[in-house]
């Protein structure tokens, strides 16, 4: 029996580069950095005083009363999902709610709500803690709000696999449609944890860049001067749809989600496997799942977070699983690392790279690591035909996810 083909028919995002997909993509192709200095008073005490903050505040999009009951990660998931939904033209399509599912995850969840409400608890006592606290901090909150907004009744799912979350949520959406449990899945990731505690925690791991004096140069994947990732916030959401359903309603199709590969390292809670074994298997599984030959992969949107170890491990994994021919991009050089939203935003970049025939640039790659033997579109975008592209996402916990997108 032929397997169900799954296509992408809608995109939505709010990111450090723009309040929607079009402005984000334009900024990426222009090689702009979304990283800036943290000017909040609390930042002064931290070793890391830079981050990639949202270009458009949620308060410019959602009304005040609505925002009172949404964690920031929920608000931006909702904004991205509304955009994707409108973009897909599904609003008045007569889609059966029981054929619509949601798969939206977060790496950390409603941490800022928990911390803010704990401040209230300490200062004013339990009666002053907001009755909205639990639905604001629960990790399924973003998915649940999106499901509520869109009326999804085929299941609302919230994957949590750290920095692989956004990609794994999309992979789950693929599975749901292939399994016949829904015709349409609104899938993606969200993250909003620019707060002193998460920053201090990541900084204590020595995982973050401390290039505080040059925010725009701090995220520099594969560059010799890289010294850790730059925390970003944002949300990315795609509308996945069975190809037959999309065709029947005459939907515009961006690309095909041809396959996904998910593996786990079983090696260390935070260190990636020393030979990238799990990453290699994830990519190989994705290519097999997509029934794509590795020679056909022309572009990879790499996970490449700008950490000393991880960046080069991924290069080794790509050489082994794909080869030396694809043109790479590390869009985190511009967006920072959106943690649980990264795999979703980078899937959107991968999809648009295919659609527009252009590899987005990797900025700040001034002095490439000696081990960088693959071709990277450094500084400037590269125009080329991209029939097949790969997006990688890896997360603390040993999660490895690879997604294969192909031209529709």
């Amino acid at each position, binding site marked *: 029996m032929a397997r169900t083909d799954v296509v992408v028919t809608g995109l939505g995002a709010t990111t450090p580069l723009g309040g929607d997909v079009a402005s984000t993509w334009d900024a990426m192709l222009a090689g702009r950095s979304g990283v800036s200095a943290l000017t909040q008073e609390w930042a002064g005490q931290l070793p890391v005083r830079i981050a990639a903050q949202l270009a458009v505040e949620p308060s410019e999009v959602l009304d005040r009363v609505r925002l009172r009951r949404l964690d920031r990660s929920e608000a931006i998931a909702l904004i991205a999902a509304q955009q994707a939904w409108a973009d897909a033209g599904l609003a008045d399509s007569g889609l059966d709610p029981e054929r619509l599912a949601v798969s939206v995850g977060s790496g950390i969840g409603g941490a800022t709500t928990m911390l803010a409400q704990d401040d209230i608890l300490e200062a004013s006592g339990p009666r002053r803690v907001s*009755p*909205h606290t639990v639905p604001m901090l629960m990790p399924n909150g973003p998915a649940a709000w999106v499901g509520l907004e869109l009326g999804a009744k085929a299941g609302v799912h919230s994957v949590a696999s750290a920095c692989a979350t956004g990609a794994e949520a999309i992979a789950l959406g693929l599975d749901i449609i292939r399994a016949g449990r829904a015709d349409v899945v609104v899938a993606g990731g969200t993250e909003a944890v620019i707060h002193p505690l998460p920053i201090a925690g990541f900084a204590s791991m020595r995982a973050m860049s401390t290039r505080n004096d040059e925010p725009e140069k701090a995220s520099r994947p594969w560059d010799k001067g890289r010294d850790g990732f730059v925390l970003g916030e944002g949300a990315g959401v795609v509308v996945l749809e069975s190809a037959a359903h999309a065709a029947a309603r005459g939907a515009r199709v961006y690309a095909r989600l041809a396959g996904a590969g998910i593996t786990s390292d079983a090696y260390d809670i935070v260190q990636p496997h020393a030979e990238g074994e799990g990453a290699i298997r994830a990519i190989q599984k994705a290519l097999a799942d997509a029934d794509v030959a590795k020679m056909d992969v022309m572009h990879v949107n790499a996970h490449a977070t700008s950490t000393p170890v991880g960046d080069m491990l991924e290069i080794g994994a790509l050489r082994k699983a794909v080869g030396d021919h694809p043109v790479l991009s590390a869009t985190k050089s511009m967006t920072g690392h959106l943690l649980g939203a990264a795999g979703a935003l980078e899937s959107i970049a991968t999809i648009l790279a295919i659609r527009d025939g252009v590899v987005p640039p990797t900025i700040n790659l001034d002095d490439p690591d000696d081990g960088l033997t693959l071709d990277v579109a450094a500084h400037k975008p590269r125009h080329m035909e991209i029939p097949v592209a790969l997006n990688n996402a890896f997360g603390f916990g040993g999660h490895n996810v690879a997604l294969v997108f192909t031209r529709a």
Partner: protein
Amino acid sequence: MTRDEITAGLAEILEEVAGVNPDDVAEGKSFTDDLDVDSLSMVEVVVAAEEKFGVKIPDNEVQNLKTVGDAVSYIAAQS
């Protein structure tokens, strides 16, 4: 404090917490049916009203406060 003053105070809270138009707030209005205040927002309204009017509204009383007028009467009797 007059009943009108309490009603006006409640209207301010309802606008802040639930986005209710102050012009819609009147003694005969039901919190849930007319003003669309859900159960979690009602908790916020009660806590804010306790602070604003210097009264205590125990949880077992809240279920009896169906309308703005019920709340005004309760607050007027306590303050």
